[in-house]
């Protein structure tokens, strides 16, 4: 049995947070400037936390998203219905997920009428997932969900995945009940054995078994407050979790198609390269696409052609990616150090990054520790949250080259 | 023998509107009737001198079928 003691108390048990005391009026009796500052500060704090966090990330993730499609998902406490709201948010999630976890794989399951159905297989191409989600909008929600069936199904899909990858399940659970064929404790046990992390987001009220599953498998359990909160909860799952101790690390062989193949590798190769060919991703469909000799990507190992990346070569099993796919997540590896807040640097009249002249509106400026350049608050946030590169360091011949090794 | 009549051609947005005109015309005493010719589904030909009267009639009708959308206080 799970132990009942909880480390963090419920919100209503904790003391009052006197949020209103943080708000101060400015000289004109307005709050606006203050509010903006509080927001900016909060953002900085969060970004700073992230920057100092774990460096090792399990970036090869295999994740099954389980969507509850039982009767209760037609309730309209989320607009327009729970189901449509969740689908909409998941589209955003899929997009962000692949943005941040370029070589990860995602699968989608739904559960209704006591069964579990696979909607999208575990794969690395977001287009298909988005399509599947959009098609689901027209399907109906009926019957009762089955938590156990869903978890078993996800487990079957995940347990064959390589040991070096992180295996995860995310359940969006609207029902307060589940109709299971057997003992769910056994399922929890085998989930744990297989290193599968289950995170659950509840759409109604807290359900004890959900909390237990999440806790035992190392995942998170949260219940939404409103649709904004739900969005936040779902998007929290985009960040790769810190590596669990038992995960093995390994070097994975990967192909990077798109080089000048056939340039001196012998005649046979170049002949295959220039002939129009069907791509292998669509060969099983009726709408196979014939490609000219310039489009498409060839597997550098066996020469099969694909019309989009990333893909796992059907002939030789090599994972084919493009360099930018990997590079998209490099900023996790080389986070930039938070800039230091300075109250006044009189000799600098302009923000180094955006060339904005400093005025009286900028009480604080920010300095990079490495290159000693000064930037404004807005640039500081932009650099930290989006750019992930210090323009000052990149403009200095010495610091510019310290990255990558 | 070809006949020429001066007047105003009225093009109605839809057939229902023309029926409204016919209806208005029907209720009037003979000396006030304004429709000279009923041309087709959406067109009628009317006498110029009744145009102003017709427009105010239509306005009255429109007023009677609309209701206030906004509350004033």
């Amino acid at each position: 049995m799970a132990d009942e003691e909880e480390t963090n108390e419920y919100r209503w048990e904790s003391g009052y947070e006197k949020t209103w005391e943080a708000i101060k009026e400015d000289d004109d009796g307005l709050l606006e400037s203050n509010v903006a500052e509080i927001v900016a500060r909060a953002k900085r704090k969060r970004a700073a936390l992230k920057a100092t966090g774990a460096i090792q990330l399990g970036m090869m993730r295999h994740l099954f998203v389980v969507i509850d499609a039982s009767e209760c998902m037609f309730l309209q406490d989320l607009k327009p219905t729970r189901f449509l709201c969740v689908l909409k948010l998941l589209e955003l999630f899929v997009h962000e997920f692949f943005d941040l976890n370029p070589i990860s794989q995602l699968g989608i399951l739904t559960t209704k009428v006591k069964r579990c159905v696979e909607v999208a297989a575990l794969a690395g191409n977001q287009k298909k997932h988005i399509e599947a989600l959009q098609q689901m909008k027209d399907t109906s929600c009926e019957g009762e969900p089955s938590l156990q069936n869903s978890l078993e199904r996800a487990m079957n899909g995940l347990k064959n995945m390589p040991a070096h990858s992180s295996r995860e399940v995310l359940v969006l659970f609207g029902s307060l009940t589940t109709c299971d064929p057997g003992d769910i404790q056994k399922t929890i046990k085998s989930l744990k054995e297989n290193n599968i992390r289950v995170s659950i987001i509840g759409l109604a009220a807290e359900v004890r078994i959900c909390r237990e599953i999440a806790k035992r498998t190392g995942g998170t359990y949260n219940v939404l407050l409103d649709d904004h909160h739900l969005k936040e909860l779902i998007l929290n799952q985009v960040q790769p979790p810190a590596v669990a101790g038992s995960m093995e690390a390994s070097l994975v062989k990967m192909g990077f198609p798109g080089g000048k193949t056939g340039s001196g590798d012998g005649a046979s190769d170049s002949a295959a390269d220039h002939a129009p060919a069907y791509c292998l991703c669509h060969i099983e469909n009726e709408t196979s696409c014939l490609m000219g000799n310039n489009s498409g990507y060839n597997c550098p190992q066996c020469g099969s052609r694909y019309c989009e990346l990333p893909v796992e070569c059907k002939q030789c099993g090599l994972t084919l990616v493009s360099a930018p796919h990997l590079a998209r997540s490099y900023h996790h590896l080389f986070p930039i150090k938070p800039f230091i807040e300075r109250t006044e640097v009189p000799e600098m009249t302009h923000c180094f990054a955006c060339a904005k002249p400093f005025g009286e509106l900028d009480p604080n400026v920010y300095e990079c520790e490495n290159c000693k350049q000064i930037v404004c608050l807005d640039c500081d946030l932009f650099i930290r949250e989006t750019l992930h590169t210090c323009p000052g360091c990149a403009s200095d011949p010495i610091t510019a080259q310290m990255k990558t090794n | 023998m070809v006949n020429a009549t001066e007047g105003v051609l009225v093009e109605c947005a839809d057939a229902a509107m023309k029926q409204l005109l016919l209806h208005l015309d029907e209720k009037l005493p003979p000396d006030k009737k304004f429709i000279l010719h009923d041309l087709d589904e959406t067109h009628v030909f009317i006498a110029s001198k009744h145009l102003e009267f017709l427009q105010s009639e239509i306005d009255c009708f429109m007023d009677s079928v609309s209701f206030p959308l906004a509350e004033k206080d």
Partner: protein
Amino acid sequence: MSVQQRTLDCKDLHSYLKTLPAAVLDRLYNHPATCLAVFRELPELSRIYIMRILFVDQAVPKAIMGSWVSPNSARELEDIVKLLTELRVWQEVEMQGGLKGWLLNPTFRRNLKGALLGGGNEWSMKPNTDADPKARGIAVLDEYAMGRWECVLHFMVGSHQHEAISSDALQILQHAGLMKKEPGDNQLSITKDGFQFLLMDTSAQVWYFLLQYLDTANSRNLDLIDCLGFLFQLSFSTLGQDYSTDSMNDGLQKFLQHLREFGLVYQRKRKDGRFYPTRLALDIAAGPKKSMLNSLNASSQATGYIVVETNYRVYAYTDSSLQVALIALFCELIYRFPNLVVGIITRESVREALKRGITADQIVSFLRQHAHSECYKEPPVLPSTIADQIKLWAIERDRFLYKDGVLYNQFDSQADFEILRNYAQERGLLVWHTLNGRKMVVTKEGHDEVRKFWKRHSRNGSM
């Protein structure tokens, strides 16, 4: 009896230029500022074409020019060719070997190139060499410009707490048909066009007003080309910079005084020797389409002040009696506070406006134009229900389309009917016809012509 709705026709720069005679156009291009202004208003693709041949000193064959666009844009190219020919920016020429080609107007080329790289004709407006001891800030200029301009508008809406405007301005207002003297009445009163004018955004108003002014330029002994050239130069001047009046001739000096009255330029004293262009002037070349006034400068008082809610309520954060008067044109005002007016849009109030000749589109675009900056944070700026409802109220009035005409019926034969119908159609006199029952309506003006033709025809027929 005219039964058609008329909207105020505010020409953009190009349509105005097209109305000018060719010789005037050619002389206009003698100035870099005009070339620049004309160039900026061209569609993007034509600008690209001009850039491409700007440095080519000879005609370029049509075949080559045609190959620059992708096949599905060929239609667009035709439109461009038409436009550029009409504006006399380029001409069709016969090249060696009988090839057809296009040649950029040499004056236009030289001056556009001059504006870009230097080396063309001189600008006649020069910054003052010595600094103004009493230089004016941009805020002062803005205030002055808006103050002067609103003076004209105030006069139009008839709020008389402001100073009167000059006889020149009166004349233009009358000439433009924005105001008129009713017979037997000494006062000027605002016309339908005037109401529409009031709802246009400021830069469009200025442009329309200037067009009317230029119309009367010759009667004031002003040279149209000088004035236009000067206006375009003004529009490319720098805000807050003072310019010297030394090099200006008498005509332009006079013109400058008029512009000063309307707030396009600021001058402390008539004989000061320097003047400052204001934001109103900088907007001219952009024509009525896009204004810098409403949007670029957040601190200026010209920013939006109207919030419209879906419950038909209009909140106008303003203390200007002019702005209140404008809103009252189509709103029922219910509360009034020192800096806020609350009104409500009702069917009656909109119909009242429509009867005055204001169109639904004008109301909608006015509300959008002056929407409070907060409204932009969550588009749509104007709730679509409101925009739609205003248009519906307008359409409701247009359920019937009235056209004056003469009805022909009781034709003896199909042939007779067709002859007469074809005759009327060819001359554009036919309003409506039906084969079913052989009826046709011709315009009132065309009635005589058609009747005469018919008489001739039937006489011939009977012979």
